[in-house]
């Protein structure tokens, strides 16, 4: 970025005395100080420029360095600053608010005065802002529901009831738990975005839940009644005789709650597992099992 010469900006000669520089700066600042021009964005830009220039050549030490070329105009840039006007015009909730500048207009009976009165009332009773938070919960909590306590940045705590069946990204609105308003405006709301942590076992699609479940060879071949975990506790499920890896069994009503009432289902996909260690008895049995090599499970797998 090209920086203009600070003497040019202030409109003084490079040989000007310190007093002349101060006088020039004051004259410009009186006209351009952002707080004396609350509706004028251009003034703020210009003021930034003259304040930087004055910061450089209004200081005897820095001016000497600048004149000798040791520092340049880029070194004088000021960090952005919040002015009084940035607070005073937006919020009425501070001790400096003063409506006396138009109090006389408010007592008339015309339409303009009515609008003015309504505006003043609306400001006096402005509702507080909504505050946004996010909350990470376990998958199981998202299905079964839960009570969580959220600690806010300001130290307040918020008790949040997670309804059963919430989905990722859903926003819970807690009425009246946001920022305080002014007058009779009341509190804003707290908006809590739900973030569901991935689960090691369960996944969800729509209202249904999916689970991969290992079973033993014996359970798969002979059938069995086994315990199956669900987000709301474990249940007993019948594995039919002759089940296979990939067989999907349905647990009716064990899914997530539906909007329309009732629940989705949980689908359990079986995975037949051999014992972890090689088993001599099993090996002996399978080598004597004549039908073991008479079926082709790869029929449909093409190269």
């Amino acid at each position, binding site marked *: 970025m090209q920086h203009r010469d600070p003497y040019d900006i202030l409109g003084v000669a490079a040989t000007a005395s310190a007093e002349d520089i101060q006088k020039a700066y004051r004259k410009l600042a009186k006209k351009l*100080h952002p*707080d*004396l021009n609350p509706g004028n964005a251009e003034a703020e830009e210009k003021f930034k420029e003259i304040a930087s220039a004055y910061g450089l050549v209004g200081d005897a030490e820095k001016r000497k360095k600048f004149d000798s070329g040791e520092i340049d105009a880029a070194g004088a840039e000021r960090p952005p600053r919040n002015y009084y006007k940035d607070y005073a015009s937006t919020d009425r909730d501070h001790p400096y*608010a003063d409506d006396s500048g138009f109090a006389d207009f408010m007592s008339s009976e015309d339409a303009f005065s009515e609008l003015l009165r309504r505006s*003043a009332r609306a*400001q006096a009773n402005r509702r507080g802002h909504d505050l946004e938070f996010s909350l990470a919960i376990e998958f199981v909590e998202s299905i079964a529901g839960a009570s969580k306590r959220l600690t806010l940045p300001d130290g307040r705590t918020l008790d949040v009831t997670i309804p059963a069946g919430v989905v990722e990204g859903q926003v819970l609105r807690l009425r009246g738990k946001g920022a305080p308003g002014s007058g009779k405006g009341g509190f804003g709301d707290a908006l809590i975005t739900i973030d569901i942590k991935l689960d090691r076992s369960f996944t969800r699609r729509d209202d249904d839940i999916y689970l991969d479940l290992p079973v033993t060879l014996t359970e798969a071949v002979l059938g069995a009644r086994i315990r199956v975990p669900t987000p709301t506790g474990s249940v007993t499920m019948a594995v039919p005789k002759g089940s296979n890896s990939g067989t999907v069994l349905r647990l009716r009503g064990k899914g997530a709650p539906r909007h329309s009432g009732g629940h989705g289902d949980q689908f359990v996909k079986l995975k037949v597992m051999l014992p972890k260690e090689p088993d001599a008895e099993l090996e002996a049995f399978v080598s004597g099992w004549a039908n073991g090599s008479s079926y082709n499970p790869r029929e449909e797998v093409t190269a």
Partner: protein
Amino acid sequence: MKLSRQEFLSLSGVDQETLDVWIEEEWLIPGDSSAGVSFSDIDVARARLIRDLKNDLGVNDAGVGVILNLLDQLHGLRRTFKQMRELAGTIPSG
């Protein structure tokens, strides 16, 4: 954001004694809290404005009071004007 007296002094660059005078003059109106007076962001911005007026613009004490009073009336008007514009937006035109 609530600031203690100490935090306020370091943020605004105002010294202890000057702050007492400004509060006395009601140029600054700090809030009350259980731990004594408390300040907020708007107080810091207002203190910087007062400092600019006195140091940079060469305004004397009487002038500062007059300027603050007029500025606050101006901000009251601007705020109400903005609110009126919002309300006017809800009135069907035509």
